[in-house]
């Protein structure tokens, strides 16, 4: 069997991290997917479940500010990290500017891809406030939309860039 010094080095049953600015400690198997933790354990159902293999982007969240597919991420990989979901973008008073732009420009139809889309756009604009078309396409390659044909989405992104993260 395995020796004791090795045994001390396994991931524990409690995940400690930050979700939308709040420190949490939650009992969970270390290989449980972040997607399940968010939706089923924490009730944060804005993060959507669809392909479950990293191909659609409906489950996109930010981990330490970078977009990540929560369906590909396990609990132990979130230890000590800061996670932001779609629910964490708006403050008490109002929506995040990117959310407002999606509303104003009709950046969605059924809305299923929208939380993931908005999370990816937020990460892009935090990093690159004035992206080129190529950078926008690059940042959104992992987010698929079956409804809009992307026209409304690109319009929303253009508007968000114009506003430069400011509220109107």
């Amino acid at each position, binding site marked *: 069997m395995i020796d004791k010094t090795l045994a001390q*080095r396994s991931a524990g049953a409690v995940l400690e991290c930050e979700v939308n600015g709040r420190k949490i400690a939650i009992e969970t198997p270390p*290989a449980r997917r972040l997607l399940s933790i968010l939706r089923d354990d924490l009730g944060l159902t804005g993060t959507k479940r669809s392909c479950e293999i990293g191909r659609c982007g409906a489950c996109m969240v930010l981990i330490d500010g970078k977009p990540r*597919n929560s369906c590909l991420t396990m609990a132990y990989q979130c230890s000590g990290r800061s996670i932001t979901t779609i629910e964490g973008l708006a403050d008490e008073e109002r929506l995040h500017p990117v959310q407002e732009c999606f509303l104003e420009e009709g950046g969605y139809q059924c809305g299923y891809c929208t939380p993931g889309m908005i999370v990816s756009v937020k990460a892009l604009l935090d990093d690159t406030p004035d992206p080129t078309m190529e950078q926008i396409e690059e940042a959104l390659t992992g987010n698929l939309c079956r409804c809009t044909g992307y026209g409304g989405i690109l319009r929303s992104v253009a508007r968000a860039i114009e506003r430069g993260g400011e509220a109107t």
Partner: protein
Amino acid sequence: MAMEEKERLRSPSVWLPRDPGEAVRLKEAFGGDAVYVAGSTLLRTQWEAGTAPVPAHLIDLASIPGLDRIEETDDGLVIGSLARLRDCAAHPAAAGKAPLLVSAVKAIAGASVRNQATLGGNVVYRVGDSMPALLALDAELIWHDGRTEETIGAAEWLAGPSARPGILTAIRLPDRESGMTSNRRRWFAFHKVGRREAFVPSLVTVAIAASVAPDGTIADIRIAAGGGQTVPRRLTDAERLLAGRIPDAELLEHVYDAALEQYAPAPDPFAADSYRKRTAANLIAAELWKSLREPDRAGKGDGDASESID
């Protein structure tokens, strides 16, 4: 969704080794019940598809400090196996020393997957899109068997058995030209063709690295092709035709034929072998043709570029 209930019932334990030796000892202790995990992006796909069982134990290589380092050395570039694809693509030393690898890495999956996936995971996959580029760059793989390190050429490793004991710790890109007083130009091209333009599994992936004398003579060239489940390999017949020559239209016809002949794609359910062979040969001939017509083209387009190395 099936994953959902299973997740709670039989979630594997996750081990966090502190160094390569500890990782290998854990694997030796658990044998077939354990797998090494880097970014877990490929493993997750395999678990969901049912092509690999969820094991009882995961050995997390990301917990080993320093394995994700990217370092420029006197004679090349060393990329830790745990370096995220995103960091490989963004690292200034990689852009300077291995623009071909940067092009290849940027063609893997989408940005969010690259924030998590590692170069080592892509290499151990064997059919990953970085592999043709690593073959063209004559990369070396550094493995740790729990006691010592061993360096093995990427081509040699691909020719061997897929299950190798130990862990991959780093990928070394030797600077073949260093120390040489040369006014040769370094030239490279990378192309991945799939069923859509981006974020797609490849049908054909081609990588070329060459050094070219001022008069256009190809001093040294390596061409590699993979795609889909094809284990990438060098197209040595085409390389031999080109070495020491200034390519022209006639030579490129022979190069096309040689590539068509030697590239042997693993079967794909939706694309005929003949189509993929023609695609690979066309891409190679077209890239070489472009390099003749636009010798100074640098870093534009689909990842082909040239630069001086004097």
